[in-house]
């Protein structure tokens, strides 16, 4: 891999995966962004404006403008107290492992990002809500947080600036729905992790009813670099109009599955063929989910699309988390779809009918089909269910996300589904 572009997020990391220590982080320019913010008298609004100008968009999958989100937090004297920053580290999207990489290997980057973000939204308390299974990240973050407290980067009167911030690490009890920002807030409050009604949106009514910003780990990690090197630099990192670099990952039967920090807008083909080394010998590419399990399949004809928030929409898909799952010709597309649907059905919080009921039904239809018990009419039922899961039809984004692999599999691999039904078996088994 040739590094003829900046890789601010991963440049300090060691090839062996060991953690970037506090000293190493500081030596590489770490904790300078927060110094700059606190010592040069930047106002919270100025930090927010800088992030807005950088065109940083949320890396959790939805791609909302981060600076714009921050600007929704009520400011001034009469605002409810406290304001919270919550870092969403509940990375449970199947096929996605980018935040884990950032947290395990460079935890201080996340801590500094959280500090700058918290300052920008005038938060007093920040939480990192971490996926419960991420034990290594948990250990390394806990250690790094303790170090940061020791160095007075956290706590009262940070670096003598008068600004104070408490940062807590919270391990999730587990469940995909905790990754939904409002499901996460309920979980953090100790309640059932059902998503909340929006409106009210978290910037006005969030954690414990107070103004809250929830940002993804990767998003937060970008923040110190924007402050250090400026919004235009960050904006210039991308190859298309979305700014910055992005962690892209590939899993599946490729030669070199992995994760790389690349310019936003790198094409799917470049990631797949150059970085992941193309398909393994003897297997052929059939399609891929570009950004985790809850994105629509794309196929051969779409490979030259850029991985950014807008381009994949042309193929009816979306970038999601930017971590691809590749389907090859030795793998049954029905089996893969069932596997994903089974996951989503299992993770439905059980709140709204199209989700808890429809996903369970679709799960059983796909299982039957894969086991040779499919019936004519099953595909119509599946298609009808995917319409029931459309955005706005359900309470949150889980079922619309679950619809994406199913509806696109039915579109691109329909003959495989039909063969399952006609032959009363899985042709791959």
């Amino acid at each position, binding site marked *: 891999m040739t590094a003829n572009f900046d890789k601010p997020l991963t440049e300090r990391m060691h090839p062996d995966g060991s953690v970037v220590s506090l000293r190493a982080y500081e030596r590489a320019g770490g904790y300078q962004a927060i110094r700059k913010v606190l010592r040069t008298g930047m106002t919270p609004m100025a930090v927010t404006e800088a992030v807005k100008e950088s065109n940083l968009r949320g890396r959790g999958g939805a791609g909302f403008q981060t600076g714009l989100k921050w600007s929704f937090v009520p400011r001034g004297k009469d605002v409810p107290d406290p304001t919270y920053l919550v870092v969403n580290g509940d990375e449970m999207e199947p096929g996605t492992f980018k935040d884990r990489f950032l947290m395990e290997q460079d935890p201080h980057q996340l801590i500094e990002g959280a500090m700058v973000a918290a300052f920008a939204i005038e938060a007093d308390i920040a939480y990192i809500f971490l996926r419960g299974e991420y034990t290594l990240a948990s250990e390394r973050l806990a250690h790094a947080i303790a170090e940061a407290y020791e160095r007075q980067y956290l706590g009262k009167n940070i670096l003598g600036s008068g600004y104070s911030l408490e940062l807590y690490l919270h391990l999730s009890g587990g*469940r995909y*729905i905790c990754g939904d920002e409002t499901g996460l807030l309920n979980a953090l409050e100790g309640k*059932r992790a059902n998503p*909340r*009604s929006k*409106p*009210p949106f978290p910037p*006005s*009514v969030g954690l*414990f*009813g107070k103004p809250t910003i929830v940002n993804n780990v990767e998003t937060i990690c970008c923040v110190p670099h924007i402050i250090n090197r400026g919004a235009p630099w960050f904006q210039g990192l991308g190859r298309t109009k979305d700014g910055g670099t992005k962690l892209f990952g590939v899993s599946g039967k490729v030669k070199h599955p992995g994760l790389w920090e690349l310019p936003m807008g790198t094409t799917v083909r470049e990631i797949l063929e150059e970085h992941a080394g193309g398909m393994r010998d003897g297997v052929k590419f059939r399609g891929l989910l570009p950004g985790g399990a809850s994105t629509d399949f794309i196929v051969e004809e779409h490979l030259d699309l850029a991985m950014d928030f807008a381009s994949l929409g042309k193929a009816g898909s979306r970038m999601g988390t930017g971590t691809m799952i590749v389907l090859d010709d030795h793998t049954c597309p029905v089996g893969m779809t069932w596997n994903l649907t089974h996951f989503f*059905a*299992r*993770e*439905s*919080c*059980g*709140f*709204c*009918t*199209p989700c*808890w*009921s*429809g*996903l*369970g*039904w679709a799960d*059983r239809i796909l299982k*039957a089909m894969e086991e040779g018990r499919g*019936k004519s*009419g099953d595909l119509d*039922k599946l298609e*009808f*269910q995917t*319409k*029931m899961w*459309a955005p*706005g*039809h*359900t*309470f949150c984004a889980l079922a619309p996300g679950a619809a994406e692999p199913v509806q696109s599999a039915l579109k691109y691999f329909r003959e495989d589904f039909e063969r399952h039904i006609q032959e009363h078996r899985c042709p791959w088994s």
Partner: protein
Amino acid sequence: MAIVYVDNKPCEMNPEENLLHGCLSNGFKLPYFCWHPALGSVGACRQCAVTQFRDENDSHGKIVMSCMTPAAEGTRISIADPEAVAFRAGIIEGLMLNHPHDCPVCDEGGECHLQDMTVMTGHDYRHYEFEKRTFRNQNLGPLVNHEMNRCIQCYRCVRYYADYAGGNDLNAFALRDRVFFGRAEDGVLENEFSGNLVEICPTGVFTDKTLKQHYARKWDQQFAPSVCVHCALGCNTDAGERYGTLRRIVNRYNHEVNGYFLCDRGRFGYEFVNDERRFRQPLLKGQPASAASARRYLDEKIAQGRVIGIGSPRASLEANFSLRTLVGPDHFYSGMADHEGKLIRLMIEILRRGPVRTPTLGEIEKSDAVFILGEDLTNVAPRMALSVRQSVRQQPMEAVKKLKIPLWLDFGVRDAMQDAKGPLYIATLHGTRLDDVATATFHAAPDDLARLGFAVAHALDSSAPAVPQADDWPLANEIARALKGAKKPLVICGASCGSEAVIQAAANVAMAAHAALSFTAPECNSVGAALMGGKPLSAAFQAVRDGDADTVIILENDLYRRAPHAEMDSVLKAAPHVIVLDHLPNPTTEKAELILPAGTFAESDGTFISSEGRAQRFFQVCMPENEVLASWRWLKPDHWENLDDVLRATAEALPQLAAIRDAAPSSKFRIAGAKIPRSPHRESGRTAALVHINISEPKTPEDPDSALSFSMEGTPDQPPAALIPFFWSPSWNSIQAVNTYQKEVGGPLRGGDAGVRLFEPSPKNGQAYFSAIPAAFQPRENDWLLVPMYHIFGSDELSLQAPAIRELAVMPHVAINSDEFAEGMEVEVTLADGTFRLPVRIHREMPAGIAAVSVGSPPLLAVQVPGWGKIARAK
């Protein structure tokens, strides 16, 4: 009002509400599950989807949930849009995937919201071919039955039980398509309002377990509008009957009183009506007698003269007045113990004189600062406790309004509000079930409670008398500030402490704070009995002892609950002839020469006056095939033919009760010439109702007393509120049909809610402050001040005879804060009336020197508490 276009038809909707509310209020048949007018919107079931259009040129539109979308001016929606119709069909099919389709064996069948909505949506074919999920059901105690396989995961049960009623033992467990709504383990539902789950649940997950013991379908039952007899709040109910036995009680919506909810005592206490020990024919000297011979005996005794009558606070005004007329006003005695009567008359006097106003339960719910003085509401006036629990949300709601969150958006409101609560101060003898939402509590002896009240009044208005040795009492100042800062302050008090000073203190607070003032009362017609008057009960006893009465007629009253056992024994022994009218055997009926079988609320018409001062009529639902008659029918003069005559005579004789005639339409009332049917119609007609018993159709019993018929035939129109026997309208077989009886869903019933308020003083009326402030309570070295403790299950005479309630009754005990005794220890409590053996429960919140004893059930029926007594370890 906003104009919203529904399928291009302009409709008036309340812009403060959502589209579902607006559509239902406009009479559209839009199916829904998770929404409830008392619980608001959460958007779980997705059943109420409609298509919303941007403007008149938008032909595509998008699906929205009507419950989650404001009814904003100019909104354009379509219910009939094919896409919305298909979506709703998809939802109902999804909801029904796991439903067992066991309607024929389900108690909800025939009055099931899920059935109604399934039919409304047109879902009639099942495409799902896999196994259904199944659950293990729980034993939730004697009141509520649990059948989880029927669940459609609408979440209404937990939203009602936990969020609304404050229960914490019913939860949603697990996820996806197998969310389990139940308890962590089998056991009795702890909340005192659990029975509402039966009506809140849209299907048969939670059903009435007492109904199950003697089940009949809604369409096979005969109903009558009734009023609860188990406390003084006067919650409106509908009583359902079949084959002469009472099958159940359901809520009768009254916007001003009980709204959508009842307490468990009110819902499940009815079974005393069916008790096998009921008097079903007269008993003369212990032997069954005919009605004619009983009447002859009664007439004889009246003719012989020297007859006195003792009324009852649990009997109707009509029954009391008929007795008063029979014996003459000079020989009519109040059925209440003197002290209790005195307290109730004091409360009435305060409310009649004004300027403070007695609020409806609906107004209590909207109060934004509440001060409870001396009342353990959950155990004395349970439904009011549920209203007070809502009141603490009023002040935080103001902050929510500022965030521009619509108040119907339930989860949004709760997310914003979190644990914020408005002011609620509870000053009582011991801890109460409302303490969990109280701002502060204060537990003290009655005199100290009164002193706190007087001090609050003084802090509010320095012209109110100051409390000696209690200057600048921080708690009093805090309560005063809270009441002063409120828009709708409320003071709640009552007779529970047995203290005039407490009542007077509450009146002072209400006057000083310009607050509403609500008094609880002990029994369903305590206020009515006090308004009717009569000589003190002690005078009746004296008359008997003095030999001035040859015959004593006792109306629906176990006098052993009014006076000590020994005293009653001697009085009744001294009376030559004792005639008792009552439902069930009790110590008083044991002494009777003649027992006349008196109809309960289910076999009688009559009027009660609630603690609010609301006169409300209840109507007969059973037409017994035996000698049971309404007490007033046994006692009335011959020339009064029906209820109208009794009411007219009462109103003429007692001007303070003149308005009771307006509590319900008279027996002459008709709708288009027709009476109001007590039975829902059935397709097979009334002949079929009894056809398995007798093929010949029996004659429909006449009802000379009311505008209701004992039949399914009559007007198809909706009756006025006081005469609604059941809620039903085409397509709405479940209790949710109440939507169609309201002008605006969740609002008053069409034509006004039932009942007439007797106390509406002018706010300009002046009333001087009470000034008899008691001295601070002084504990005594070797004595305890024994105070009464009430139990929702256990202290009410009639409900205690219902098996389900008896099973839940609290074991009578002494509550005490003392290191001398241990939890569960048996002690002997010695009072003026005797010595009683009771177990101890340690209440660490109680002050030193006082002990609370369970009252209302044996052994403590009529102990004179508060009073000084001794407590010693039992030998």
